[in-house]
């Protein structure tokens, strides 16, 4: 018990037939991020600095759905969002609708540290970024060929599925595009790209922090906000615990998933593992999602009801694990 702990994720909901090469690439990135975080923790950086550092790394790498490599809106553009929360005093910062900010998580941090507000969006957020002198790039920088291809397929799939709310169970006329029936948010899992990224940390002082960043849902309406920037849904940290979630945004919002973990610990006295288990099992209903969490006691836990979650975790006593399934 005690000591630092860190967990990172690159999204819940993995295509069961994801090529090995992609899985290895993901594990390499997660390992690299863990190493960066561990190094920072050993150098006595505080939890809030570590989560920002690690998520910046995840945003910069085009592999997952955040920063560069973000999923595309229905218009083929990128709109990013992120949030960060510092357990002591529960300070928080969030941003949405970013189109030119290279590292959304750092802008969220600035909202927390440099404004009287908790959340800035769209043009106002971009203006704030300009004033703060953070690194800005063209929207094209964030767009990858992979995602352009995925968007095209997602649009085709949607025209076959016609209404995401109608459950398409066994018989689906989609044919070739629907080899596996797994779906999230109405899209075949191979196109869904739920690879939001996040990091939770407890430092040597027992302080917890959480950070989450994403490009959002593939083919989303412009202006759509998901769970990642919403405190209590995609991100939460308090004295006891820090949580970052990923998966079907709407399901995570409805269940205020991140806050839920902390609430059952606070009000029901469950420990971290019991809390994560309980919340994943009972609070998601039909929704598909996953989360990572650390407690002030140096414990780390992940839970998901999807087919997999890209994740890595490590604790001060030497435990280290990176996984997909």
């Amino acid at each position: 018990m005690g000591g630092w702990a860190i967990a990172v994720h690159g999204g819940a909901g993995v295509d069961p037939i994801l090529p090995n090469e992609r899985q290895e690439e993901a594990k390499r990135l997660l390992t690299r991020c863990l190493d960066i975080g561990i190094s920072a923790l050993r150098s006595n950086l505080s939890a809030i600095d570590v989560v920002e550092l690690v998520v910046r790394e995840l945003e910069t790498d085009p592999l997952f759905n955040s920063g560069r490599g973000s999923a595309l809106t229905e218009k083929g553009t990128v709109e990013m969002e992120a949030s960060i929360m510092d357990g002591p005093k529960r300070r928080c910062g969030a941003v949405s609708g970013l189109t030119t900010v290279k590292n959304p998580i750092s802008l969220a941090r600035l909202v927390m540290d440099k404004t009287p507000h908790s959340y800035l969006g769209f043009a106002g957020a971009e203006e704030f970024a300009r004033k703060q002198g953070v690194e800005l790039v063209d929207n094209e920088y964030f767009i990858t060929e992979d995602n352009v291809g995925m968007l095209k397929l997602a649009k085709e799939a949607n025209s076959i599925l016609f209404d995401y709310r109608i459950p398409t169970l066994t018989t689906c006329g989609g044919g070739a595009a629907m080899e596996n029936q797994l779906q999230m948010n109405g899209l075949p899992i191979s196109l869904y790209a739920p690879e939001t990224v996040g990091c939770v940390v407890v430092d040597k002082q027992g302080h917890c922090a959480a950070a989450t960043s994403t490009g959002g849902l593939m083919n989303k309406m412009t202006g759509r906000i998901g769970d990642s920037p919403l405190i209590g849904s995609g991100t939460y940290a308090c004295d006891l615990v820090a949580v970052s979630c990923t998966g079907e945004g709407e399901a995570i919002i409805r269940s205020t998933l991140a806050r839920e973990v902390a609430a059952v610990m606070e009000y029901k006295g469950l420990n971290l593992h019991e809390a994560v288990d309980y919340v994943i099992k009972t609070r998601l209903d039909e929704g598909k999602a996953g989360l990572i969490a650390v407690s002030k006691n140096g414990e780390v836990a992940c839970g998901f009801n999807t087919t997999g979650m890209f994740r890595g975790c490590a604790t001060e006593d030497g435990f280290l694990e990176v996984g997909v399934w």
Partner: protein
Amino acid sequence: MGWAISVHGGAGDIPLSLPPEKRLPREAGLRRCLDVGIAALKAHNHPLDVVELVVRELENNPHFNAGKGSVLTTSGTVEMEACIMDGKTMKCGAVSGVSTVVNAISLARLVMDKTPHIYLAFDGAEAFAREQGLETVEMSHFITPENIERLKQAQEADRVQLDYTQPIQKEVPKDAALADGDSQIGTVGCVAVDNEGNLATATSTGGIVNKMVGRIGDTPIIGAGTYANHLCAVSATGRGEAIIRGTIARDVAAVMEFKGLSLKEAAAYVIDQVPRGNAGLVAVSSTGEVAMPFNTTGMFRACATEDGYSEIAIWDSPTK
């Protein structure tokens, strides 16, 4: 059991010396909205329709900080946000950064009913409103002389304070009551339950005076300013940043569920956890209870239950 409804027009540092010309129109507004809600419940409308109807009324009333009468951003513009949630299905809808839609709460309802998403903002929300044929107007429609004055005073007060590049202590509420006796904080909301236990909540606001363009508050954040499940429906008001960090609306339901407290006890408990002067809320439970606690000087509020009880108040007992 039985139906119940509660309405608020904002919690804040409402001075006891509030002059009649500021107090009476708001009391009348609350009374009218309460009556509209009661009539709708008696006519067996679903609580979701009732809360939307009542909040539309409050948005149209220029004396409250929502829709017409919204406070202004630092640029003198209006950016409204709203949120609606159904306790039984847990479906919800939210909008932010709305500047031309006459009734933001109805736009939030459409996001819930007509899109696969929960939350739309700024240009995307405005475009969706037009697609749906919602009533839109010039932004000037929402701007009132009182709010232009409020902005002016806030900007003058700010010049004496820190500028945005300095770290600001969010814990200390910096809304001193203005010279004309008006609180800067405000939001409107309505919660309702019918006699079958169906719950719903709706909240709408212009935000805080002199806010940064693009600032989003607690209102559209599910679990912060707005929340409903099978136990209760909650709508909060006050300093957005404190309500967000305290996940106020969600916590009322969580405390009922996990600690077994009654609605009144849970609501009072949650408000107590927030630093003084920062928050208030209205809530109803599935069994027809009502709670309207606040830790500010006052909260414009009203409620009614099927057994004939009704109340309209601004100050008085802080934890009811």
